[in-house]
């Protein structure tokens, strides 16, 4: 047993609750010098909460934090940084318009009125670049760098500030395999210099590849702790799934029918930054079919969802239903064609947060006016109450402001509204993101039921378990193209992941 002083960071019995939810329950962990500690767990296992506690954003309800054997209280990110803790967030903390050097100066200790000394910073950064073998352009504005380069600027920033404990929050979620490899090399270089790295991930293969030790979190608790050398996939899976994991294949699915409900060909699109994100996507949706769209985030999913649901125009390609050509038609036309849409952003797209539930109920309803041309609130109220009852939306009444609902309830409300329109096609973008297991399962049941009733459903998700559980077909999106389609029963998660990274099927 090593003495406490040998650990860079030690947590003892950290607990943190949000209202009734115990996000962290008596968590203890240790990070030694020159070690990569992996924190493995599903979404919602409590990883982010724990890291935010270490980084001083949240304060724990109970528990102790030791740094180099000394007990500390971390009240703010600034204090965390003074203890040598640095964190690479999933959303980078960089000013887009600045280059790497300017971003460094911003966080430097220089006084505000000091004249910019780019040269001094450049020399120091070049040193760090060589030392850790980080290859990044220092003069290019961050916004013009690729995501992986931006991440390297972030890491450089932490090293520049002299961080000894580096926390990387899902760093590979946005990276291509080759980029991930180069990140891993940098991590190795850092540990060889005596720094400690906490690597947060839910991807088992990566964790097995890069880490020295693994802590598994599930539902806010540490469910396993081991040396990576001793770990194998099966035990990790058992530890990760806890008691209440999704039960794969618990659904009774009807087979899809032959009729094609929607056919799109060669869809192309640009995002807000005028970067081409869709590069010729072709899909067919059949009656009573759920198509899962898998892919690493940022490969055109958001644009695809919007185009299929008609809230964005494709810059190229066609969308057709048996009735009509919908290319370049208005959102209203898509709605009239009974194409439903569950957007990923529930609070500002799916609903207006300042509106009551009843008001939000009207958002995508066509038949809301009575004979006099005025809103038929009476009928809508009845419909809304009915829909809320069927879909088990827990709210005081239909006059409740939608912003007061929990994520799960709000999603149920949106489902009630969209499925209530009896859609022929339903486009779902990350339908269970941020929901707890129970609510997610409820959403899945709803989707399966709609499918069994003949709706063609497109589910975009990054959760492979979800896609395997509910899809009839999984299409993999990579760099704006569908690079392959598989039936879930004929493939493995590994193969899909391989395709997501751009490997050929």
């Amino acid at each position, binding site marked *: 047993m090593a003495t406490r002083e040998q650990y860079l960071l030690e947590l003892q019995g950290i607990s943190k609750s949000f209202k009734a939810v115990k996000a962290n329950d008596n968590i203890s962990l240790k990070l030694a010098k020159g070690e990569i500690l992996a924190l493995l767990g599903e979404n919602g296992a409590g990883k982010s909460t724990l890291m935010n506690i270490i980084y001083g954003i949240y304060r724990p309800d109970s528990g102790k934090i030791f740094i180099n054997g000394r007990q500390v209280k971390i009240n703010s990110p600034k204090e965390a940084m003074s203890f040598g803790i640095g964190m690479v967030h999933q959303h980078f903390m960089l*000013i887009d318009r600045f280059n790497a050097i300017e971003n460094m100066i911003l966080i430097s200790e220089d006084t505000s*009125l000091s004249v910019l000394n780019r040269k001094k910073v450049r020399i120091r950064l070049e040193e760090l670049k060589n030392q850790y073998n980080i290859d990044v352009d220092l003069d290019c504005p961050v916004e013009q760098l690729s995501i992986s380069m931006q991440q390297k600027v972030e890491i450089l920033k932490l090293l520049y500030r002299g961080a000894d404990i580096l926390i990387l929050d899902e760093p590979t979620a946005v990276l291509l395999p080759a980029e991930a490899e180069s990140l891993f090399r940098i991590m190795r270089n850092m540990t060889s210099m005596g720094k400690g790295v906490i690597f947060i991930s839910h991807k088992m293969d990566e964790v097995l590849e890069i880490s020295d030790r693994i802590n598994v979190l599930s539902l806010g608790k540490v469910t396993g702790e081991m040396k990576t050398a001793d770990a194998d996939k099966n035990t990790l899976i058992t530890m990760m799934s806890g008691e209440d994991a999704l039960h794969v294949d618990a659904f009774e699915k009807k087979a899809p029918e032959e009729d094609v409900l929607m056919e799109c060909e060669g869809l192309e699109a640009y995002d807000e930054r005028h970067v081409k994100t869709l590069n010729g996507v072709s899909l067919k949706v059949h009656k009573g079919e759920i198509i899962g769209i898998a892919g690493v985030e940022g490969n055109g999913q958001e644009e695809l969802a919007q185009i299929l649901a008609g809230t964005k125009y494709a810059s190229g390609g066609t969308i057709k239903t048996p009735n009509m050509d919908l290319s370049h038609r208005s959102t209203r036309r898509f709605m009239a064609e009974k194409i439903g849409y569950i957007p990923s952003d529930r609070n500002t797209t799916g609903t207006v947060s300042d509106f009551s539930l009843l008001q939000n109920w009207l958002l995508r309803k066509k038949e809301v006016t009575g004979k006099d041309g005025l809103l038929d609130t009476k009928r809508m109220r009845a419909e809304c109450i009915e829909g809320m009852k069927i879909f088990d939306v827990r709210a005081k009444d239909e006059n409740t402001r939608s912003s007061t609902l929990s994520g799960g309830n709000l999603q149920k409300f949106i489902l009630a509204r969209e499925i209530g329109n009896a859609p022929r096609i339903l486009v779902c973008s990350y339908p269970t993101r941020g929901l707890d297991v129970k609510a997610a399962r409820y959403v899945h049941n709803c989707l399966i039921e709609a499918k069994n009733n003949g709706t063609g459903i497109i589910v975009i998700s990054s959760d492979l378990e979800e896609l395997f559980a509910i899809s009839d077909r999984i299409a993999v999106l990579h760099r704006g193209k569908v690079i392959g389609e598989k039936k879930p029963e004929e493939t493995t998660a590994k193969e899909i992941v391989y395709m997501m990274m751009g490997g050929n099927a």
Partner: protein
Amino acid sequence: MDIFNLTFMSALFASGVRQAVPLIFGSTGDCVSEKSGVLGIGIEGEMLFGALFAYIAALKTGSLWAGVLCGGLAGMVSALIPALWAVLLQQDQSITCIMFNIFAAGFTNFINRIVFGTNIANIPVPTFSNIPIPLLSKIPFVGEVFFNQSLLTYLSFVSAFVTFFVMKKTKLGLQLTSVGEDPRVAQASGINVYRFRILCFMFCGFMAGLAGASLTLGSIGTFTEGITSGRGFICLTIVILARWNPLIAILASLGFGSVEALQIRLQVLGSSLPYQFLIALPYLITVVVLAIGGSNLRSPKKLGVPFDKESR
């Protein structure tokens, strides 16, 4: 037309530079405020405050410089109102500033009436006299236009240059940009975003106050109600046109100043154009400039967006 000879032109442009002084002060201040992410619509009201108090102070103390200082301070203090509402209370910036402008118009008229009574034209104070810069003022044309001006005019140029230097060459400038681009990142880098924005707003108010002072003490010598007549809004347009760069803002201000000077001269000369058209000219140009120069630009990303530390 032989009236458009060199003497006429140099006199015209020299007058254009004088007319540009309030615009230079105002747009310099607004560059800073907008760069930090706060709309400078309140600058019109701050200018009014500056104009009135500069005039009163100059009249009571007999010192023009005391007037200028007082004008600047009045602008700065008045800027605390929109700053408090827009930054600390995170209210809609345009509504807050418009209300502040209404308040400023009412307040300055009110004070003016209280101090000077209702029906008397205000007593004029002497305006700043021209101080030719040795040697430079001897350059033909350019010397007459730029280097035979009042100290206030020189001050406006200097302040724009200094502001430009600070914005481009110091860490403060980087911090300013970061606060307007991504306040969350700025906060994480150790800046108190609220305090920073309020200070920027006060700087903007001070400059707007100087702009007002240069209206009353630079050319007219007295305060009249609504003396700014939309110059604050023209400053906003200049800043957009100049892409938040105080040096380019000088050029744009000179352009607008020259239009103003030309307009006055044409009126005096008895142009066949109706004078209303001439008065409206700067406003018309503003609209056209906004239409042409307002598109396809990169404004500070969080311009006009209140920052809330708590929200994620």
